[in-house]
């Protein structure tokens, strides 16, 4: 009973938040609505007994990813609206519904076929975090290490891409120096 109430409550909240994210024209509304939606998503993980996944969801998405997006929003000039030309909304709607049905079919197909068996069954006597650790560091050890290398590559890539011209501190320079180094840092008008 309480599970049903929680499910419907959080489902409605998540759908509303993500709809705001997709439909609003204000970047600030979009980012706050998406942060709220991520936290509501983690509620589903807690309901489903995946405690560790829920905690990771909160830490990674509303901690790291949202901080990165906030950094991006500060960097870009988000007050200026990007003109969003309306494509044909019917085509968009039909394509979205078709793709969603396809996703449901993909996920339901192994369940319906009934020959799926649990390779790593959830044991009752140990907690979720412990079980996740045991599976992650035995069966999924190589993908885990690969994911670590991938995150390292992403970090270095992000620093290299975004860190150009960041050896100069704009706050410690006077106005003339900032104006004289403007070429290349300020966006050029009309393409490159």
């Amino acid at each position, binding site marked *: 009973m309480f599970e049903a109430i929680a499910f419907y409550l959080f489902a409605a909240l998540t759908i509303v938040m993500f709809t705001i994210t997709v439909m609003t024209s204000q970047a600030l509304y979009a980012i706050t609505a998406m942060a709220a939606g991520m936290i509501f998503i983690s509620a589903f993980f807690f309901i489903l007994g*995946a405690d560790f996944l829920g905690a990771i969801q909160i830490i990674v998405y509303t901690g790291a990813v949202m901080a990165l997006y906030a950094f991006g929003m500060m960097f870009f000039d988000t007050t200026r609206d990007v003109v969003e030309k309306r494509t044909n909304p019917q085509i*968009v709607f039909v394509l979205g519904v078709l793709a969603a049905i396809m996703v449901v079919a993909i996920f339901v197909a192994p369940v319906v076929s009934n020959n799926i068996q649990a390779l790593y069954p959830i044991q009752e006597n140990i907690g979720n975090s412990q079980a996740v650790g045991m599976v992650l560091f035995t069966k*999924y050890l190589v993908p885990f290490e690969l994911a670590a290398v991938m995150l390292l590559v992403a970090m270095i890539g992000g620093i290299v891409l975004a860190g150009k011209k960041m050896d100069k501190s704009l706050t410690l320079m006077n106005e003339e120096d900032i104006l004289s180094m403007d070429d290349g840092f300020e966006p050029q008008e009309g393409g490159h």
Partner: protein
Amino acid sequence: MEITLTHYLVLSSILFAIGLIGVMRRKNLLMLFFATEILLNATNVAFAAISHYIGDLSGQMFAFFIIAVAASEVAIGLGLLIVWYKRTGKIDLDQMNSMRG
């Protein structure tokens, strides 16, 4: 009133549809990244639900790796977006047509 796997899959598909509509509707590249995060989260919900109802931990493992991929994608994507913004001063998808595709 029992919440079954179907409930979660329907919810996941609704979230996925919202994300897809966002991907097709947005022209601002930063907003496009938001929509891709919604897509990844929709699949995460489906993975966690199937993991719970089948009693298998593999679904949660895949959700972990999806979260790792999403974090890397944000870092690299924002880096590339910053480089593009420094070069052109625009983050509009329609003006990204230098290849005349």
